[in-house]
């Protein structure tokens, strides 16, 4: 039944006094928002996704964008989003798909945590003049060191260390698959990550051969669909990650629409051309923790125990106990992905309503592992809504070893967080496989955006650490004494194990 059209989300206008009819807006918008009609540009605002590509490319700054140009009758319960979702589903009878992270207006715990600095009783350390160490090893650590005295009186190391990833910064790039994003986007991030001595995930889309030059800095992923997995893939990665779940859609598998599966994607994923790639919700060989433990060991056997194996889970209610179970398998790191995590495509109802915030998840996991006396034996990587260096610093102070960034890395490539990734028409050449669009990213130029971003954040973390009188990242990890909660309630403070602002040391 037609219910008529819903109001457009955006209103695009062009100042015709400024416009020179160059048509760059027409060329740049894959959604068909602009059309040339005689001596003017006709605008179909309804097609606009708010991606800003036209605005960024307009040489005259002639284009303006207004959000929500038509008001609904205001109502505290029946929000615009609630009503529009119903109109959509009344037409389609289907699940509503969305892209990017949670759009609900939930409080950001990170913004209510404040960092510390030194005054008088201890000196702050100046990173321009003194070393500040951010090197982070990700992987299993022994509980203690065993040594023996040689007959010559030397001390020899008996303990053999498990393989670890050596990161020069605690910032890594999370898993975004080839297919979900373009090869040029992956290439830019892989080269950017290599440049600054960190790592990047392949996602579940396999490893395209043009990424081989960066394989030393890439973590290969095994998800429930097992796309692109063979022994060559496992051996090329610096580490292997088993993806159990994802913060944006805990409990369900990935979905890549067939339209995005062109020849290269099909080869890399090892699936038929233009077929939907639908990952099952669970791994069909993992129905319990002991099955996971077997898969971890199988992967290690296959790669001769030379590679760390990570396990990624979504931050769900019982995240701490699950992480503790994983830590007691042979896994080297646990990745926890909070409910603000982004995605190329997720059902709206999952993205917005399932899982818990990463801040609480880090604190709970760190506390549980510590209580069981195994915290330092395994690494914890946190992800899901990390926006800046302050978030990274706070995540580490709460107990993470390092973080994965996803959306932030895409934003460095131009992404405007318009949330239409699932449509496969990304005007920035990121979440698309259409050649004319992917060509908008030149990896030889854009890698610098990614390395600049990570480098800039790394410098800021050094400054924050120096101000706090800490010259090594190890001494920040789990150092919740250097955080204070501002306007957080007592329950959250007790989960975070952080004191309130104004509290004594």
């Amino acid at each position: 039944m037609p219910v008529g059209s819903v109001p457009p989300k955006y209103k695009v206008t062009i100042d015709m006094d400024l416009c020179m009819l160059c048509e760059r807006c027409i060329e740049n918008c894959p959604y068909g928002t602009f059309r040339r009609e005689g001596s003017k540009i006709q605008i179909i605002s309804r097609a606009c996704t708010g991606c800003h590509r036209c605005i960024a490319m307009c040489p005259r700054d002639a284009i303006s964008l207004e959000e929500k140009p038509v008001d609904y009758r205001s109502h505290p319960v029946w929000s615009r989003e609630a009503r529009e979702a119903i109109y959509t589903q009344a037409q389609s009878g289907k699940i509503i798909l969305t892209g990017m992270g949670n759009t609900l207006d939930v409080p950001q715990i990170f913004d209510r945590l404040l960092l510390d600095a030194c005054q008088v009783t201890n000196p702050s350390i100046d990173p321009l003049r003194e070393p500040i160490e951010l090197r982070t090893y990700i992987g299993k650590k022994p509980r203690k060191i065993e040594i023996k005295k040689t007959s010559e009186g030397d001390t020899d190391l008996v303990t053999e260390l498990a393989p670890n990833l050596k990161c020069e910064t605690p910032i890594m790039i999370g898993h975004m698959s080839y297919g979900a994003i373009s090869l040029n986007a992956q290439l830019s991030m892989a080269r950017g990550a290599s440049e600054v001595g960190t790592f990047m995930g392949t996602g579940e889309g396999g490893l395209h051969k043009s990424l081989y030059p960066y394989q030393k800095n890439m973590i290969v992923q095994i998800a429930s669909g097992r796309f692109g997995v063979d022994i060559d893939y496992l051996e090329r990665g610096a580490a292997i990650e088993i993806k159990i779940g994802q913060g944006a859609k805990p409990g369900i598998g990935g979905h890549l629409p067939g339209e995005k599966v062109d020849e290269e994607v099909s080869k890399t994923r090892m699936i038929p051309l233009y077929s939907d790639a639908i990952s099952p919700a669970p791994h069909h060989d993992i129905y319990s923790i002991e099955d996971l433990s077997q898969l971890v060991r199988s992967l290690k056997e296959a790669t001769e125990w030379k590679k760390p194996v990570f396990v990624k889970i979504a931050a769900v209610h019982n995240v701490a106990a699950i992480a503790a179970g994983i830590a007691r398998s042979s896994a080297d790191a646990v990745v926890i992905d909070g409910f603000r995590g982004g995605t190329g495509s997720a059902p709206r109802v999952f993205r917005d309503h399932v899982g818990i915030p990463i801040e609480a998840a880090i604190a709970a996991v760190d506390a549980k592992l510590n209580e069981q006396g195994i915290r330092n034996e395994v690494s914890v990587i946190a992800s899901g809504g990390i926006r800046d260096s302050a978030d990274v610093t706070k995540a580490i102070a709460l107990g993470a070893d390092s973080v994965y960034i996803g959306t932030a890395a895409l934003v460095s490539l131009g992404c405007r967080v318009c949330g239409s990734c699932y449509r496969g028409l990304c005007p920035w050449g990121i979440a698309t496989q259409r050649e004319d669009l992917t060509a908008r990213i030149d990896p030889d130029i854009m890698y610098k955006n990614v390395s600049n971003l990570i480098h800039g954040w790394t410098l800021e973390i050094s400054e924050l650490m120096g101000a706090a009188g800490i010259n090594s990242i190890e001494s920040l990890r789990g150092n919740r004494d250097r955080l204070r909660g501002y306007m957080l309630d007592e329950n959250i403070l007790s989960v975070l194990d952080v004191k309130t602002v104004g509290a004594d040391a």
Partner: protein
Amino acid sequence: MCGIISVINRKKNPMDGRAVREALSIMNERGNGEGAGYAVYGAFPEFADYYAIHVFYDDLIGPKTAVEEELDKLGTITHDEEIPTFEQPNLKKRHIPWRYFFKPNVSALGTTASEEDILVYLMKKVNTTIPGALIYSTGKNIAIFKAAGWPEEVADFYRIQNYEGYIWLAHNRYPTNTAGWWGGAHPFNLLDWSVVHNGEITSYGTNKRYLESFGYVCTMHTDTEVVAYLTDLLQRQHKLPAELAFKALAPPFWDDIDRMPEKERTFNTALRMTYSPAMMNGPFAIVVANSAGIAGITDRIKLRPLVAAEAGDCLYLSSEEAAIRVMEPSPDRIWMPRAGEPVIGRIQ
């Protein structure tokens, strides 16, 4: 800012408390009269096989009975006495210091336990559940004298000239976090370990959590106790030699490790990765003692001073050269240890 001085006679010849009192007092510029303390090893030769448990009581009514009940449950008290004190014009006796010479019963808890485990259990139990009682020392043959006051007042309050030992550790305090609290004065002791510390440990939260994962409980509200516990964990439980244990607390920078020859690099990398939560950050100079010797160490960029000197059988460690020269006007050698480099004096 605080002042520390320590001396060991490596032949174990006894020294009385007079010289260390003078040495500590000359650093009064580093304190503010709100805390001073002394530790002496070899103080109770007649009770050398018993744990000398030192307790501060707020009064002699409730807490003392409660502590003694615990002691009776966990072992045998061979001898106990109020630690003799002598009134000083400016030092108010806020607590009653008491000492017990104690033999723990390893089967008292019913679980697998060593004598040390019983003592650690006792200390945790008393300090967290009995208000008005604080166990501040548990070592064999070790006496601790501390209070809120200037070094010479505290020394005279306990008359430390009447005690002799082969190791002295002393501390002159300028408190910021727990002003005036006797329990907050240094030295801190745990079993055979005693610690004096000048500085502020910025990694306290990380170190504390790490220690908690091994069952230690921090009860003194100050960062110094983590040094004692970390030393206990690394040296007693993990059996690392002193040099390596201190290296774990103040490891070389990665840049320096990367430049080492392969074997050394592997060793240092493993040590640093394994003990990263034990690394201490922030400004500190520390002297740690046990019955076998003393060791001094500073943070990795030496934000607090430490001077070392040798004279005959004695090794001195101090915040200031002046303090050492009070005790020994012409040492054979006097030097400034490098940042993060431990100076160790062992008995022969």
